[in-house]
């Protein structure tokens, strides 16, 4: 590591230094590990919360949407349908939330130590990732109970996962940079996430959406990501190449936008946070 370091004023759009990010990969792991340990050491059930949360959500949604509102679930058993949606949605919501507050939660590091700042939002995904893995295993168990085996479109799952991650991380990066300056914007993001839940068919089938509102739901990229998630795992719903390509392009654009905006504002973080 004896390249020359050059320090000078930076303006405008800066390239992303992937090589440096790779050099600091261990730190991403350590920070993610720290967040995970800290959360579960303090929790009553410890790591059990990762199971309790999705189970509880599924019970509530099945009751409210399935029994009370009597919505349909594209021909699947309601709990299974819901759990699939919840597992995906929870991860994306967590990834957006965690990346947004990643800078605010690490003010002390930002003002005292050097490392590529992108490390913070990326490591912020760690906690959501652990919760995801645990609840995904739960999902597989539930599938087994209902006698479902993964459909032949299973290999599309990582694609939809990546799209959702790219989209939420891109937005998260944008907001994390803004939140460094305006701390109260994190509440706006939390509100946005809640609002977004209501325009995404997470716990009810897409067929339930009234004609007049369809355009609203269809313009929401997360609708297709969640649908795609369900489609690749359980084989229901409509998915075609067009929808995949459009949503993927959108995610790439949002992610790139977020990355570059973050990099551009990076130099000021330590001064304004």
């Amino acid at each position, binding site marked *: 590591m004896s390249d020359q370091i050059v*320090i000078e*004023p930076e303006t405008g759009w800066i390239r992303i230094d992937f090589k440096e990010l790779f050099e600091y990969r261990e730190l991403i792991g350590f920070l993610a590990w720290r967040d995970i340990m*800290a959360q579960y050491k303090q929790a009553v059930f410890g790591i059990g919360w990762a199971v309790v949360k999705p189970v509880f959500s599924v019970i509530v949604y099945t009751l409210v949407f399935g029994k009370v509102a009597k919505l349909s679930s594209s021909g699947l058993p309601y709990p299974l349908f819901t759990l699939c949606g919840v597992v995906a949605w929870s991860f994306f919501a967590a990834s957006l939330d965690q990346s947004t507050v990643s800078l605010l939660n690490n003010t002390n590091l*930002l003002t005292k130590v050097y490392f590529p700042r992108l490390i913070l939002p990326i490591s912020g995904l760690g906690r959501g990732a652990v919760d995801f893995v645990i609840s995904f295993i739960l999902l597989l168990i539930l599938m087994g109970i209902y006698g479902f085996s993964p459909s032949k479109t299973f290999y599309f799952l990582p694609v939809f996962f990546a799209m959702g991650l790219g989209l939420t991380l891109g937005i998260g990066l944008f907001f994390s940079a803004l939140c460094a300056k305006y701390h109260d914007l994190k509440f706006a993001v939390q509100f946005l996430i809640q609002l977004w839940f209501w325009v995404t068919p997470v716990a009810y089938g897409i067929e339930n959406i009234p004609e007049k509102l369809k355009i609203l739901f269809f313009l929401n990229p997360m609708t297709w990501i969640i649908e795609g998630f369900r489609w690749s795992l359980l084989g229901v719903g409509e998915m075609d190449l067009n929808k995949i390509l459009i949503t993927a392009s959108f995610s790439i654009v949002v992610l790139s936008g977020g990355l570059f905006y973050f990099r551009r504002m990076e130099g000021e973080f330590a001064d*304004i946070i």
Partner: protein
Amino acid sequence: MSETVIKVHNLSKRYNLGELHNQTNSFRDKVIGFFKKNAGSEKRETIWALKDVSFEVKKGEILGIIGRNGAGKSTLLKILSRITKPTRGKVLINGSVSSLLEVGTGFHPELTGRENIYLNSAILGMRKAEIDRKLDKIVDFAEIEKFIYTPVKRYSSGMYVRLAFAVAAHLEPDILLVDEVLAVGDAAFQKKCIGKMEDVAMEGRTVLFVSHNMNAIRRLCGSAIWIDKGRIAQKGPTAQVVGEHEESQLIRLNDFSFVRERDPEELTGLDFYIKRVEMLNPKMEYTNIFSYNDSLILLVDLDGELSENKYSIEFRIYKDSGEFACTGVSGALHGIYFDNHTKRIKINIGPLILTNGKYKISLSIITGMSRADTWENACLFNLINCRPFSLPQEIKTPVCVIQHAFSAME
């Protein structure tokens, strides 16, 4: 001929005053403000924290950076550490850099000592393999073998500092940037820290050391730069630079007033600071002349907002020639920490077993792991009537251990 490892050229850094005083981090307030006043009529006040700073550092050099509070020393280190970007100018660095701007950065209270060693080391730039290798040495240096599996929130402040410094002490960068981190801890620990810095120096590493402690600077640094109001006032061999800096302090300080107010220039960028000090005798009369064996009382007024819950106060007494005489600190020595609402503190120092002469007192606020504020030469006093030949015990002046007591006043 040693190669140049750091080259600083015309470095300048400008801050908006709003940023420094952390005006508003609220979007809501910003929007409201936009509607309230006539938008755009606000002047944006800026301040140059550093202006046209240029210097070079050779490999193996230990460079001291001195100056009053608010002069720009920490800003310089921050830029060299790549934590903040310069407004103008350029820096070229050849070699790996580690910065110690704070001790215990990133420590998490719920994690154990061992876990925090890994975390802190990684944050400071060590690879996991390296940490595995050095783990035992770090635990050894910190002297906390029995407690490494206990969560750090249970540690005493002394243990915390030892652990934090132990990690930092085992960094092996080519270039080390240190910002007054030797401030905390008890005397034995500080001695250990200085010793370690000396080892680092002997290993041929380059060190940049910011401090208010002129003795440490004299002892460790071969050369020094004096920064005043963002510019380099002087650079060269330590003795010369430190001498001139102290002289300038004395010149502005022929002020033997009993009540001394802080120079507002020093307050830029400080959230919590010492505002005023009064010097009295035990009968609560203002004075600045004390006889041998008398006690001295300081009433210290602080101001501002402190984000931490509590803080500790330190005083240092120096002879006017700059030699260090004695010190006392409420936290590390007595476990007395003041609540952040306490703005007035009484320090009772004495009996004053010092030799005759002029003395100056420096005051510091210590929070957590760092010095929030240091007021060098806050006040002066004269000590008289010391008769060395008629004393029962030998005075090992000028350094001595002096009795003192701290208390909060409301």
